[in-house]
């Protein structure tokens, strides 16, 4: 078997439709299994998959470094770097990559370990042709789900929208930024790193851009570029952002009490912070409200770098736990109107664990209730 084989089952030239092909990488040290997979995919004529194969983790990583892959399907039992280690590595390096674990020896502990390592699915290796078809259908469904989630959602605060625009302009990207805040919807068109048009409500051009950048909260979605109805802006993006910031600061200092009922006043439409205070858990024992003793604290950056830790028995494991929580918080909100994730609280009869995950940081605190010594 070759080191890495690529099987494009359509041989079609790159068209818009072809660009939507899913690139799937199978990693397994069993050449027979990879050949069977290739045969089944070829036979089933799934014209929208480009399939890559690697027989160990190292070769898989070299494929990933050269080709944007959408989905990795990895065998759990592999020599040298096993599937769980490999998945964990992928989860760190490619957090948005979809990962599926395949195993011939499925059990609960292996399943939990793979999910913990960032796998979306844990599947038993099929032993029959029908089983193989069923696995392929499941993978197809997973990759389709990802298609629906193309682009990304994020919470917009004053600084973060500017950051996103700056990032896109610096990278000379072409995108349309959809901005939504309450009833308001707006769009900012960025073409090859230049802001060319904006529109919001009845405004367009610089007025709309300044208006959108004065929003204090909401959501944005990055969309593929489409030509704007008109090119209304030709100033440099640096100038536009600076001017918007200046106007916003002036407005803030001029109108300290914005809740005047005006539709123009964004503060009247939106909470000042996107996360409201949640009421106590109805499933909780009220006694839990009593003071608790902090037993462990971890603070890390958005990249997983430990910034502060106190009494963590294993910081790497805890950082990984925060990453899993972050990942799961996005997964379980798919298709639901939940807004930004704030935190997860877990309770045992003796203790609580609070994990807050934001784009720029993760915080984990473990508390023990009073009087629960030991354990």
């Amino acid at each position: 078997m070759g080191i890495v084989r690529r099987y494009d089952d359509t041989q079609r030239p790159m068209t818009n439709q072809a660009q939507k092909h899913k690139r799937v990488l199978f990693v397994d040290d069993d050449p027979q299994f990879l050949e069977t997979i290739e045969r089944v995919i070829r036979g089933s004529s799934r014209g929208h998959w480009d399939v890559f194969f690697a027989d160990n983790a190292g070769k898989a990583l070299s494929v990933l470094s050269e080709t944007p892959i959408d989905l990795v399907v990895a065998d759990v039992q592999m020599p040298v770097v096993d599937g769980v280690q490999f998945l964990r590595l992928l989860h760190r390096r490619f957090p948005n990559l979809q990962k599926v674990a395949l195993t011939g020896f499925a059990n609960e502990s292996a399943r939990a370990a793979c999910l913990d390592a960032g796998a979306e699915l844990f599947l038993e290796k099929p032993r029959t042709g029908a089983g193989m078809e069923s696995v392929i259908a499941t993978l197809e469904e997973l990759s389709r789900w990802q298609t629906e989630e193309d682009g990304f959602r994020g919470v917009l605060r004053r600084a973060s929208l500017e950051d996103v625009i700056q990032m896109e302009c610096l990278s000379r990207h072409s995108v349309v930024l959809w901005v939504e805040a309450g009833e308001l919807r707006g769009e900012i068109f960025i073409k090859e790193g230049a802001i060319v048009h904006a529109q919001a409500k009845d405004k367009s051009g610089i007025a709309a851009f300044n208006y959108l950048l004065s929003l204090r909260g909401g959501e944005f979605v990055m969309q593929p570029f489409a030509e704007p109805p008109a090119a209304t802006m030709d100033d440099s993006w640096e100038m536009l952002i600076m001017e918007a910031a200046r106007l916003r600061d002036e407005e803030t200092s001029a109108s300290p009490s914005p809740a005047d009922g005006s539709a123009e006043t964004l503060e009247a439409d939106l909470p000042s912070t996107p996360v409201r205070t949640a009421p106590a858990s109805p499933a909780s024992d009220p006694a839990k409200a009593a003071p608790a003793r902090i037993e462990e604290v971890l603070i890390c950056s958005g990249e997983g770098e430990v910034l502060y830790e106190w009494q963590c028995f294993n910081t790497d494991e805890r950082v990984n736990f925060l990453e899993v929580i972050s990942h799961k918080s996005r997964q379980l909100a798919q298709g639901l109107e939940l807004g930004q994730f704030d935190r997860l609280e877990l309770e045992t009869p003796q203790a609580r664990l609070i994990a807050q995950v934001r784009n720029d940081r993760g915080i984990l605190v473990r508390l023990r209730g009073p009087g629960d010594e030991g354990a």
Partner: protein
Amino acid sequence: MKGGHFPTLSANDYLIQWLNQRTHLPGVLACGIGFSNKSTASRSYAPGFPTECLDKTWRYVGDMFEVAGLHRFAPHHARWIYERAQLYCVRRTDRILFCAFVALDLKPEDAAAVSALFAEFKGQQLSA
């Protein structure tokens, strides 16, 4: 009614019946059960919570209970707090999960009713 046999419900059927009859409370946006055989049952009571998405959600919640156990913290309750709603989850020792998306601005009496609902779910295992 003549004496004889009542139609018997399986434990899962019984829980689905309970889900249908008891969970439509003020402030409950959607809820569902994740059974130990990985099947799920979902009920949606608010727009923005389509049942086809909820079924996946319960599966991910179940995964998280497993993963937390690996991190030496096996919870019986979990609360996921989002900007617009929070998700309460409880898992019984028979590994059956009950989860409910609840509005953030619950009135005290509604919160008490939701709390009672979770207690009822757990109590059903004790009485089974």
